[in-house]
Structure formats: C-alpha cells, structure tokens
C-alpha cells in the first residue's frame, strides 16, 4: 500500500543512493519500509574514528510530520546517548522539522558524535568525563569503537 509516509521514504532512499553523504549509510528493512537499518562511521579526528555504529530507525505513518525513533544498536559511550541506545538530539525531538530526511538525520547524528553537548547529558558519566577527564573519556570511547567491530 502506498501512503504519503511510504512514498516519502522511497524518495529518501533514492536520494540517499544517488547523493550519498560521507560516512553514513542506511536502507529499509527487507520486508518493511517503515523500519530502517543504518550505519554511521565514526568521524575522523575524533575518538569515534574507525567505529562502525549500527542504528535502527522506526518511522510512523505520520512521517515526515513526526520524527522517527532512532536508536543505536551498538553500545555507545557518549554524553548524549542513553544506555538503551536512545539519542538526545533536539532535531529528533522538539526541533524536528518535516523538511529533514533520512540523510539529514544520519549526518546530524554523525556530527553529534564529534560535537557532544555535555550540558544536556543522557549519560552523566560520559558527560562528566568529557568535561573533566578527557583522556579517560577517550579511552572509554575507544573501547566502544573496538566493540562495534565485533557485534552483528
């Protein structure tokens, strides 16, 4: 069945393939276009470098008027990512605009990895280390990066 949300997701997918942004990729699940799997590669010159972080994106029929639910499947250590993989990012909550598409969401999450916002922490441990003990923070992130190569 073709609804506005599904048509829009097909367009998002087409745009993602024709004009792929650097360091992210994503595709709808095999038999459900409303659930996507995505991968974000850790940005260069950050502790997340070389990581391959997997995410799921669940869209509702109200997309793009409502944001999708985006979660990391890989275990993350980041000031704005909850223990369950949920992401504290303004454009996925109150500053969502229907003009965003999948590629914009993934690039925003990628830039969140390089620029954490320790002032609205979802992981207070990570936020504290980020502010006070950068070396320990980077060590914990590196451990996540290595773990991200192993999980399926």
């Amino acid at each position, binding site marked *: 069945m073709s609804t506005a949300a599904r048509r*829009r997701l097909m367009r*998002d997918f087409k745009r993602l393939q024709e004009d792929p942004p650097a360091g992210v990729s994503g595709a709808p699940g095999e038999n459900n276009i409303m659930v996507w799997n995505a991968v974000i590669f850790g940005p260069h010159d950050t502790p997340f470098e070389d990581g391959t972080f997997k995410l799921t994106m669940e869209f509702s029929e109200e997309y*793009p*008027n409502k944001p999708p639910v985006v979660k990391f499947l890989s275990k993350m250590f980041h000031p704005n990512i909850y223990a369950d993989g949920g992401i504290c990012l303004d454009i996925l909550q109150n500053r969502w605009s229907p003009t965003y598409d999948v590629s914009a969401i993934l690039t925003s999450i990628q830039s969140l990895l390089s620029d954490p916002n320790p002032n609205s922490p979802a992981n207070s441990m990570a936020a504290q280390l980020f502010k006070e003990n950068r070396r320990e923070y980077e060590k914990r992130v590196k451990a996540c990066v290595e773990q991200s190569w192993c999980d399926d």
Partner: protein
Amino acid sequence: MAQANFINAGVTSTSSPRPSIFQLLASGGLHRSICPAFEHILRLLKTRHHSSQALDLLYKYCDEFWLLIDLSLESYYLKTYNALFSEHFYGLTRSFKSNQRHPILRSLLFSVILPYVKRKLDRVFESLRESVADGVPTSKILEFSRLYFVRVYPYIHMIYEGLHLFLAIAYTLGRSSYHQLSTQLAGLTLTQITTEAQSQFQERELKSRNSAQILPKIIRSFAQTLTFGLETGSFILQFFNHWQSRTEHIQMGPTSDIPDPPEIDPEISKTTCPICHGPRRTETLLSISGYVFCYVCVVKYLRQHGKCPITNFPANEDSLIRLYSQESS
C-alpha cells in the same frame, strides 16, 4: 470606580435604572473582545520567542488558560460588584431574583463557560468542515458523526445568534427585560449602579483589601491593572491615532522580527515540496514565511503543529495562498 462614576454622571439626566441597549451592547462587546486580545498577545510573544516550549503549550491551550483567568477574574467581580468585569466598566450591576440559589455560580456558568463551549464548538466545526471537504479518512462511525455534525451545526449557530438578535430587539422595544441569552438563562437583569450600591461595593472592596489571603489579592491587582490598562490604553490609542494622522509619512516598523533569509537549496526549492520531497502538487504558498508546498502536505502539518514547517513561525490555514503557475495551469 472612576470610570463608573463618569459614565453615571453622563447618563443620569436621561436614564432610569434600566440601562440603554447601547450600554449593554458595548459591555457585551468588551466582554467578547478580551479573549481574542489575550490570544493575540500570546501569538505576538510566540512570534518573538518561537522556540519556547512553554509558550507553545500556552498558545495551544490558549482557550483553557483564558477560561481559568476569566473564571477567577469574573468570580472576584461578581462577589465584589455583582457584575462582570465589562459590565462594571460600563457602570452596570446585576440584580438577581431573591429566590434564586447560587446566583454567582449561575452567572459564571452562563457568561463564562457557555461562551467557552461555543468558541470550542466553533473551532471543532471549522476543522471538521475542512477535513470533510478534503476527504481525510476515518473510521465509519466517526465519519458518520462528523458529517452529521457538519450539517447540523450551522443551524445551531444560526439559532443561537438569532435568539441574541431577537432578545436585543425585544429589549429595545421594551418587551423583554433580558437583552441576551446568558442573562435570560441565568434569570437576572442588569441595572445602572446606584449611589447606595456603590458605597456597598466600596465597603466590600475595602474588606477584600484587608483580608490576608493571597489569591484574592492577586486577582484584585490583576483586575485593577486591566481596568487601568483599558482606560489609559484607549486614551493612548486615541492620541496615537491623532498623531499618526498628522505624521502619516513616517513609516512604522513591522511588529515582529524579520526572519533570517532562508537558505535556498536550488535543487529542492524550484519544483519539489520541502515536506514530501516530491514534485509539488496543488502548489500552495504559506504567506507567513513565503515557502511553497503541496497543499495536502502543508495543511496536514499546520493542523497538527500550527506553525511553519521550516521557520517555526506560528501559522494556520488562513495564511495559505493557492498558486496558479503557468506550468500547472
């Protein structure tokens, strides 16, 4: 009190305790225009601080917030002056039949809650009418009741307004002692304030001023600010009107901040809709921000969020303009 005295002094030469229809209509007009004024102030604030969550919420439930403020304000006025705020402003007072119980509650019910319900129904009707016209799908039972409501409501509205007109005419001709539905239902009549009533009010005012409770104090100072604001506001408005007419060549600046020019992605903006990212169908301009969308996309978003999808400026369906470009015609 000053304005009540002033109005009394102006009319005593001709008046009986029965107020003229003009006085009643003017006080009714004031009563009805305070809520839209409140809404307008909220909209202005929201335009200035369009990322504030609290304002968003306040604006969305504007009617309910006003209901709360109105209820506390009017109950204070009814207790102290036997009149609504607007009626007291025009020097009127409510006289209840002696055998009636809970006169204040009845007044609040018919003068504050009834108009609120009517306003809400009007809004529901507006949104339902358009969703019927657009053919937005729902379940069968909802569909039926929606159609039924849209057909019947205009008649209810007509009867409601017709009764008002009828009562106003009957009152002017002296056939009825009620000039509008709310007073008829509450079973009370409006009369001019007499001198002895006025001294009674002053006594009550003093009493409430001396009481130690905080809430009545807040309400009282709010009421006083409102009265004072109305008096000075109308004076200043007159003054500005006069001044404006003499210096018409001086341009006043726009009332709201000018938004930053949008970043235009030439690929997207020429032919595609920013919401569905597909070719625009039934091109429609949102005049608040100047962006062009598919009609279906933008209407759906506006109904849910009440703001421009790109700039977040508050907007509604009234600011949509259908575009007829050469290609689409």
